[in-house]
C-alpha cells in the first residue's frame, strides 16, 4: 500500500471525487462509443497517425477548446469563491490550486494551442505550399503538447495539483512549502509541451523561410505569416530559457540541489529572473499572431489593403526585440534598486510605441473602408478599444515607482486579463469564425456568433473593470477571501456576474458549433468572405495536397489582385505530387513521453529509465527508417479537382 499512497490526493474534497467519477465515466463513454461505432480504425488512420498540417491544426483546435473549458471552470470557481466576503465555498489550499492551474492551462495549454491550431492550418496555405518543412516533426510537436497537457490535467486527481501560482516562484515552489507532487507536475508537464513548442518554432521558421510560393518575397508575405515568423523566432530564443529554468526547478525538487533555495548559496531570485526572461517574450508569442489575425480580418472586411504594411512589419520586429528586455517589470518591488528599475521601466513603456503604431494602422485601414460587420470583424473591432484600456493600464504598471502601489493587486489582474482576452482570445475566436469555412466546408452561424460577441465583450468589461477599483483600494490578488469591512464585496460580486456572462458567451460559441454542424448549408464557395490571401485560392474543403498547381505571386495580396485585375495564379501544368506517409511514431512517442513524465513526477526511477530507453529506440527507428513518401498521380489530382476538393 505504501507504494500506492503516493498517488493519493493530499486534500480530497467532494469536487475532486466528482471529477474522478466524471473522468472515469467520460473515458468509458469514449471507449464504448468508438467501439460501438467502429471508429477505432478511422481514428488511427485519419487522425492519430496523420502528418497533414491541416488535421494537426484541427487537433490543436479541439484540444484548445477543451482546455478553454478546463481553465474556464477554474475561473468561475475563483469568481464564485470571492463573490461575497468570508465565503467558505473553497478552502485556501483549493483556491491556491485553482488559480495556479487556471493560469497554466489558459496560457500554455489553451492560448498556445489555439495559436498553434491557426498557424498550422493557415500558414502553409497562406504561403502557397503543400505542407510544413518537417511534417513528421509537426505531428510530434502536437503529441508532445498533448502529452504535457494530459499530464498536467491529471494532477488534481493523481497526487495533487500544483499550488504555487502559474509563475511558481521559489522558495514557495520548493519542497519546503509545496510538499505534494503538484509542482513536479508543473515542471515536467511544461517541459514536455515546451519541447513540442520549440520543435514547432524550428519547423515553421524553416517552412516560412524556404517554402513560400514563387514570387512571394518576404515583404510580400501576408501579415499573419509575418507575425508567425516573428513569433516562432521568439519561441526559438525564449523557450530554451524555460527549459533550463524548469530543469533547475526539477532538480531542486527531486534531487535536493540548491539552485533556488535560500541556503547553501541558492538564489530564489534566479528563478524569478529566468522565468520572466521566458515569460515576457511568451506574452508576445501569444499576442503577435493575434495581431496578425486582426490585420487579415480588418483588411478583408474593410475591403481595403492593410495600411502601413512595412511599419506593421517593423513594429513587430521592434516588439520582438524589446520583449526580451523588459522582464524585470514583473518584480519591480523585489529589490533591484532604482537604476535597474528605471531602465526596465523605460524599455517597458517603449513597447507601447510600436504597439500604438499597429493600433493606428488598423484604424487607418478602417478609415474610408466599406466595413462589413461579420462576427470576426466584430471581434476585431471590439479588440481595439478594450485592448487599448488594458494596454494603457500596462503603461501605468510599467512606471516603477507607481508600481509599488499596484504590484500584486487586482489592478494587475485586471490589466493582464484586459490585454490577453481581447488581444488573444478575441483573435482566436475571430480567427476560428474566419477560417472555419476553410477548415470544415461550412460557415458558423452569424446570428449566434454576434450574440456570443456581445455577451463576451460586455462581460469582459463587467468582469475586469471592477478589479481596477478594488485593486487600487488594496485588494491583493490570489487572496482566497476577505472580510466585509474591506468594502471589496460589491466589486467582486460584479466580477462574478461578469464571469457568468463570459461563461454564457463561450457556451454560445459551442452551441453555435453544434448548430452549424447540423444546419449550416454545405454548398459554400471556396472564398465565402471575399478575402485577400492565398488560402482562399484553393478548393473548400482543402484537398490533401493543398494546391494542385503551386501558385505564382506578384503582389502582397495576390489572390485579391487575381480577382480584381485577373492576374493568373496557377500557370503550370499539373504534375504528380509528392506526399509524406502517415506515421504512428509521433503518437507513440507522445505516449512514451507521458509515461516518462509521470515516472519523473513520482520519482519512479526504473520506469523513468525504461521510458527514456523507449524514446531512444523511437529516435533510432526513425533514423533507420526509409520513408520516401508517395506520389499522387496526375489523373487522381484531376479527378479531385473536378469534384471541388472532395475525396470521393
Amino acid at each position: 500500500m505504501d507504494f500506492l499512497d503516493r498517488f493519493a490526493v493530499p486534500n480530497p474534497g467532494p469536487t475532486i471525487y466528482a471529477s474522478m467519477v466524471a473522468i472515469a465515466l467520460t473515458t468509458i463513454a469514449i471507449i464504448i462509443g468508438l467501439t460501438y461505432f467502429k471508429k477505432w480504425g478511422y481514428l488511427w488512420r485519419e487522425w492519430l497517425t496523420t502528418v497533414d498540417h491541416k488535421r494537426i491544426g484541427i487537433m490543436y483546435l479541439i484540444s484548445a477548446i477543451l482546455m478553454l473549458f478546463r481553465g474556464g471552470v477554474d475561473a468561475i470557481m475563483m469568481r464564485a469563491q470571492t463573490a461575497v466576503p468570508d465565503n467558505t465555498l473553497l478552502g485556501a489550499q483549493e483556491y491556491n490550486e485553482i488559480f495556479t492551474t487556471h493560469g497554466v492551462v489558459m496560457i500554455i495549454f489553451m492560448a498556445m494551442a489555439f495559436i498553434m491550431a491557426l498557424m498550422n492550418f493557415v500558414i502553409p496555405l497562406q504561403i502557397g505550399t503543400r505542407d510544413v518543412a518537417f511534417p513528421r516533426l509537426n505531428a510530434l510537436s502536437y503529441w508532445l503538447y498533448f502529452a504535457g497537457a494530459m499530464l498536467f490535467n491529471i494532477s488534481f486527481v493523481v497526487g495533487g495539483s500544483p499550488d504555487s501560482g502559474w509563475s511558481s516562484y521559489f522558495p514557495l515552489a520548493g519542497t519546503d512549502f509545496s510538499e505534494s507532487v503538484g509542482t513536479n507536475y508543473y515542471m515536467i508537464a511544461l517541459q514536455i509541451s515546451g519541447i513540442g513548442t520549440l520543435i514547432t518554432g524550428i519547423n515553421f521558421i524553416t517552412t516560412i523561410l524556404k517554402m513560400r510560393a514563387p514570387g512571394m518575397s518576404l515583404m510580400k508575405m501576408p501579415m499573419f505569416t509575418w507575425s508567425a515568423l516573428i513569433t516562432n523566432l521568439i519561441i526559438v530564443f525564449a523557450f530554451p530559457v524555460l527549459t533550463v529554468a524548469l530543469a533547475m526547478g526539477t532538480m531542486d525538487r527531486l534531487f535536493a540541489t540548491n539552485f533556488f533555495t535560500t541556503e547553501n548559496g541558492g538564489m530564489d531570485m534566479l528563478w524569478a529572473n529566468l522565468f520572466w526572461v521566458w515569460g515576457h517574450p511568451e506574452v508576445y508569442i501569444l499576442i503577435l499572431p493575434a495581431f496578425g489575425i486582426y490585420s487579415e480580418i480588418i483588411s478583408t472586411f474593410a475591403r481595403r489593403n492593410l495600411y502601413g504594411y512595412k511599419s506593421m512589419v517593423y513594429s513587430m520586429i521592434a516588439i520582438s526585440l524589446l520583449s526580451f528586455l523588459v522582464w524585470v517589470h514583473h518584480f519591480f518591488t523585489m529589490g533591484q534598486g532604482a537604476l535597474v528599475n528605471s531602465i526596465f521601466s523605460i524599455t517597458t513603456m517603449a513597447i507601447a510605441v510600436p504597439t500604438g503604431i499597429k493600433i493606428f494602422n488598423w484604424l487607418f485601414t478602417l478609415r474610408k473602408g466599406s466595413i462589413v460587420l461579420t462576427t470576426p470583424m466584430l471581434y476585431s473591432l471590439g479588440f481595439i478599444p478594450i485592448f487599448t484600456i488594458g494596454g494603457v493600464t500596462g503603461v501605468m504598471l510599467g512606471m516603477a515607482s507607481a508600481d509599488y502601489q499596484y504590484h500584486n493587486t487586482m489592478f494587475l489582474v485586471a490589466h493582464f486579463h484586459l490585454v490577453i482576452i481581447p488581444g488573444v482570445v478575441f483573435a482566436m475566436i475571430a480567427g476560428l469564425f474566419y477560417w472555419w469555412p476553410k477548415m470544415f466546408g461550412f460557415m458558423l452561424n452569424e446570428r449566434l456568433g454576434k450574440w456570443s460577441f456581445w455577451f463576451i465583450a460586455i462581460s469582459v468589461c463587467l468582469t475586469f473593470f471592477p478589479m481596477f477599483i478594488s485593486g487600487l483600494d488594496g485588494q491583493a490578488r490570489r487572496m482566497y477571501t476577505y472580510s466585509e469591512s474591506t468594502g471589496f464585496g460589491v466589486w467582486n460580486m460584479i466580477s462574478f456576474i461578469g464571469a457568468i456572462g463570459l461563461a454564457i458567451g463561450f457556451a454560445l460559441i459551442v452551441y453555435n458549433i453544434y448548430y452549424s454542424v447540423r444546419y449550416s448549408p454545405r454548398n459554400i464557395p471556396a472564398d465565402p468572405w471575399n478575402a485577400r490571401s492565398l488560402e482562399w485560392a484553393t478548393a473548400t474543403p482543402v484537398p490533401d495536397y493543398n494546391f494542385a498547381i503551386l501558385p505564382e505571386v506578384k503582389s502582397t495580396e495576390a489572390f485579391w489582385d487575381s480577382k480584381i485585375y485577373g492576374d493568373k495564379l496557377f500557370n503550370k501544368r499539373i504534375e504528380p505530387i509528392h506526399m509524406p506517409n502517415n506515421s504512428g511514431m509521433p503518437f507513440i512517442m507522445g505516449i512514451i513521453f507521458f509515461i516518462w513524465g509521470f515516472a519523473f513526477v513520482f520519482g519512479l526511477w526504473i520506469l523513468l529509465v525504461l521510458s527514456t530507453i523507449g524514446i531512444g529506440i523511437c529516435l533510432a527507428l526513425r533514423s533507420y527508417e526509409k520513408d520516401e513518401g508517395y506520389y499522387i498521380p496526375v489523373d487522381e489530382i484531376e479527378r479531385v479537382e473536378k469534384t471541388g476538393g472532395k475525396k470521393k
Partner: protein
Amino acid sequence: MKVDKSLPLEYGTEQNRLNILGFWVFIGAEIALFGTLFASYFTLINRTGNGPAGAEIFEIAPVMIETILLLTSSFTIGLAIHAMRMGKVKATITFFIITLLLGLGFLGIEIYDFIVFIHEGATLQTSGFTAILFLILGTHGAHVLVGIFWGIFIISQLFKHGLTPRTNNKAFIFSLYWHFLDVVWIFIFSFIFMKGML
C-alpha cells in the same frame, strides 16, 4: 526525389536543404540554452555556501586532456566531411569512427573529473555553485553522449548505403552538431575552467 547535381550531395534535394536550415535554427535554440546556462553560472559563481569554490576543485590536467580530445575530434569530423565530399566512403567512415572514439575518451575523462569533484566535497547538492557547475558540464556531456549514439547510427548507415544524398545529409548535419559542441566546450574551458583557476 530530384537531385541537383550542381550542389554537394548533402544539399542535393529540397528536403536536404530544409533539413540543414532547420538544423541551423535548432543550433540557434541551443545557443540560447547554453547562453542561459552561462548566465546562471556567472550569477551563482560566488554562491558557494559551505562548499568549495571553483579554484579549489578545478585541476588543469584532465581539463587539458578533455580539450585536446574534443578539439581533435572536431578536426577529424571536418576531415570526414572533406572525405565525404570527395566521395571516399571508407575514409569518411574511418574519420567518423575516430571522431566518436575521441568523443568517448572525452566523456570518460569528464566522468573521472566528476568523481574527483565529488571526492573533494563538491557534490550536486553542496551549493548553488556546484549545482550549476554540474548542470552546465552535464548538459554539454549529455549532448556528447547523444552525439555518440547518433554517430553510430550514421556510421552503420554509411556502411549499408554508402554515400547517398540521404546519408551525406545526415553526416553533414552531424558534423554541424559536433562542431557546435566543440564551440561550447571552448567557452566552458575559457570561462569556467581557465577563469576559475586564475
